[in-house]
């Protein structure tokens, strides 16, 4: 037997052990009106390649729709449709307005609503879950948790607009959330001393960093760099304190490492493991803000586990279109696989009781994409799905449609679009910033814009 298949078996066995449910303590918060409420968690979820709308759209009306029909991409989500909001017709307008296109802008704008800075990988503003984590994430051991699956690229950006890395290796995500093999458990004197020692190390590092930060006339860019470093150390300190104070979960079975968790062989297992870590991190209130990204934008990785053993970018996404049913159906398979993973996550969240409801009731998942139509590399009609009970903040269980006109450039649309002119070619596009603003408001932020002052207001009819 080859080494890799041995590794794979060990890995899968370990995953099986890890998926066992964990005893977690519960956290309660007082809401503004005095009623006891569980905190709302946010997950931003990214998958690449755009979509093919005829097979993505639900069938039916706003409140009475079905996700089950031949070739439906979202069929796996049918059991959860009361906790879904399928948002059709939102456009990543900021990408066009700022001159960005294709995969580059597509990997910046989904959760920032901000322009990509030209010729860089940077964003003009933070991603929504980082923005909220900075504001609200300070009570938990991890301010935010960023996970990836399969050669993924994080869609998370700092306040300074720098892309943050994500963790692609589930055994490392596990360590991040639960500590090294869980040996740092409360009530263990040796473990307590070890934690105090680690806190001593972090304190010394913070003092050294402060020396550097106090350097006279340090340029702003360098200070920002050191501030980010300081935040990382403070987060580490908080995590250690959390572990020391017993604010953690019982030790799960550690995962075995594999050489290349991004390889297609491992992607299905890695996906499940990352979703398990995510579920438990939410359940144990280790973090309230998370991001999960599948494959990078424009990913070429074959997806044999979805029945698509070819270059998913050039041979599938690029080929999609009217009358190109073979490619369209391959894209359906890809999307169905993603929807299956989302369904698994929703099911996991829903299986954890919290008060009268479940963890899923107290979670908001915002699922976005880099593109709309894949072959056109278009940023209009980008598929968006919100999932979870959202603590009742959003009016869920609906299929809503925006942007009745569609199309990238209103000059090319017949009959002519009102307000369209050569200087305002994107007049008809519905900026997805409105959805991001609605999310912010759901999290109690009194904001009308996010990263793009031109697009004000929350998406109408979304907030309860």
């Amino acid at each position, binding site marked *: 037997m080859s080494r890799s298949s041995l590794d794979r078996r060990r890995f899968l066995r370990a995953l099986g052990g890890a998926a066992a449910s964990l005893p977690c303590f519960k956290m309660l918060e007082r809401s503004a009106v005095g009623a006891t409420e569980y905190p709302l968690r946010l997950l931003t979820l990214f998958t690449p390649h755009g979509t093919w*709308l005829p097979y993505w759209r639900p069938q039916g009306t706003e409140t009475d729709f079905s996700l089950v029909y031949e070739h439906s991409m979202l069929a796996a989500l049918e059991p959860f449709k009361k906790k879904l909001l399928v948002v059709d017709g939102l456009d990543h307008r900021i*990408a066009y307005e700022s*001159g960005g*296109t*294709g995969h580059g802008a597509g990997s910046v704008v989904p959760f920032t609503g901000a322009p990509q800075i*030209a*010729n860089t990988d940077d964003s003009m503003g933070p991603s929504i879950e980082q923005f909220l984590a900075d504001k609200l994430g300070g009570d938990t051991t991890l*301010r935010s948790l960023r996970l990836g699956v399969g050669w993924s690229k994080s869609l998370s950006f700092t306040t300074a607009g*720098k*892309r*943050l*890395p*994500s963790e692609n290796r589930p055994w490392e995500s596990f*360590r991040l959330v639960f500590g*090294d093999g869980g040996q740092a458990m409360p009530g263990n004197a040796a473990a307590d001393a070890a934690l*105090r020692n*680690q806190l*001593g*190390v*972090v304190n*010394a*590092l913070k003092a*050294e*960093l402060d*020396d*550097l930060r106090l*350097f*006279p*006339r*340090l*340029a702003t*860019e*360098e200070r920002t*760099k050191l501030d*980010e*470093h300081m935040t*990382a150390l403070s*987060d580490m300190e908080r995590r250690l304190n959390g572990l020391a104070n017993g604010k953690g979960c019982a030790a799960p079975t550690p995962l075995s490492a594999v050489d290349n968790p*991004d390889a297609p062989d491992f992607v299905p297992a890695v996906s499940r493991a990352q979703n398990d870590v995510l579920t438990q991190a939410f359940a144990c209130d280790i973090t309230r803000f998370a991001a999960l990204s599948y494959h990078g934008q424009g990913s*070429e*990785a074959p997806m044999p586990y979805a029945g698509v053993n070819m*270059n998913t970018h*050039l*041979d599938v996404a*690029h080929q999609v*279109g*009217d009358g190109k049913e073979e490619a369209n159906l391959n894209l359906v398979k890809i999307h169905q696989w993603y929807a299956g993973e989302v369904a698994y996550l929703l099911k996991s969240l829903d299986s954890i009781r919290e008060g009268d409801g479940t963890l899923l009731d107290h979670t908001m998942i915002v699922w976005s994409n880099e593109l*709309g*139509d894949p*072959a*056109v*590399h*278009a*940023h209009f009609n980008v598929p968006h799905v919100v999932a979870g009970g959202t603590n009742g903040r959003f009016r869920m269980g609906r299929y809503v449609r925006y942007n009745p*006109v569609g*199309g990238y*450039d209103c*000059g*090319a*649309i017949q009959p002519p679009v009102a307000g369209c002119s050569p200087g305002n070619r994107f007049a008809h596009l519905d900026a997805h910033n409105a959805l991001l603003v609605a999310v912010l408001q759901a999290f109690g932020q009194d904001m009308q814009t996010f990263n793009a002052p031109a697009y004000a207001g929350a998406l109408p009819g979304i907030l309860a």
Partner: protein
Amino acid sequence: MASKQTFGGTVKTCAAGASAALLAMLACVACDAHITGGSGGPTPPGGGLTPRGGVGAGGGQGGGGSVGVSGTSCEAMAKSAPLPARLRRLTAVEYTNTLRALLGDSVALPALEFPPDAALGAFHNAAALLRVTDLLAGGLAQAAQKLAQTATQQLPQLLGCDPAQVDEAGCVRGFLQSFGAKAYRRPLTSIEQDRLFAVYTQGRAGADARAGVALALQVVFQSPNLLYRSELGAREATADEVAVTPHELASELSYLVTLAPPDAELARAAMTGELSDAHAREVQARRLLQLPAAKVAMQAFAAEWLDIGKLPTVAKDPAMFPTFSADSARAMQLHTEQLFSRVVFEGDGKLRSLLLGGLLTEPSVLAAHAGAQWSSPTHRGKMIRNQFLCQVVPPPPPGLIVTVPPATPGVTTRQRMVTHASDPTCAACHVQMDPLGFAFEHYDAIGAFRADEKGLTIDAFGQIGGGTDADGAFDGATALGQRLAESADVRGCLAEQWTTFAVGGEVDAAFKCALGQTLADFRAERLSLPELLIGVVVSDAFVKRHVNRP
């Protein structure tokens, strides 16, 4: 007319023709969106090309020594320090080399995986982009813990004294002072010494000397003073322009030439202060260039420049290329790196020798810039355009279908891409890439030679346009290499690429001015790559930094 109706909007495809009005509009979008990067330079010829960094040696207007910047302004700019005072976080390789130098070869280093860093152009060592994120901080903490355990296994050997035999506190204090100075690449302040000793004391309590030293080493291994190479100059400096301190200079030199911390000789030179003298720096740089580590560093540049480091993770169709694996990819990469360092260190160090020595037809280069199944002249041409001509091709405009027709029996790769040339919208950009990439049509997706394409005759005739002195026609990869080898603009581009890597940042006009004669000499083929390095090292720009310039 082959526009199609999608979701109410009309879109355009590069697989077929389109209406003239729509064409004009789309082409315009492409230009509007991307010419702005040129810092007000002249509109580049050829539709939408921009020189890297605004005043590119590849702009083609440079000629002679002026490097594309007018004389008077260049003179003024050359006087001031072109580089800002920065903190440069070590790259993963530099960090590993630093620990190796600290602990010696006998200590096994655990695998250190840094989360991937963002790139400036092709280079992953840009000071502005190397940050310490929560993931890196967490990874370093974990690695530091393991390392400290390993490093303290033979405690007396590490400390240079046996804490069980002599005054333990004195022994440890002395060790932390000398080891810390090596790690921080400068003497420690008394506050820093006390701080490390306090951590040792904490770890020592209820345990033993080894536990204490290990805890203090955990701080050292993830210290910001180890992680960042400082260019801030002296703390007490007040002018807008600061001199890089002798200790900082020693680090600049050693990481530049060897991707590693200063050795004993360089540390000695730092203590004497002699490195502020250009000649002393040159002597040190020439000495470092003789070390094996210099070869490895130059190979690291080559791997980044040609973007072949990614090859082991690039997907190739296993059915078509069963021999291709991560291991064979690494072997291909190493072959190219060795070709590069052989020319640089054993040959004349000239770009001409690299090109005529077959750099462009190295399988690693061709495989890294190809599809999973096909040769992709577009990707290969784009690589030549970016990395050899220093010109940036804009991404496809929005609304454009970027489908390449599927492979069809009886049709060559080149024929599949015919719309790229025949359709003006596509051609506006593709003319900058495909005709360059056609040179390599005799090489498949893994860079293996093919006499024909499944029995079809291969046409490897191509053309360079874009306004540099390399413009003109060629037939095949060898002829393309010859054409590039004759070009001063291409040499200027290599100089720009290498200096970008060397200084870990954008090479702006001021920096080019500061290196005026060196760059002119390199363009004129009077200098080898190592001599370009020397030119940078002896320059004023190497030793001065500006602070808070408005």
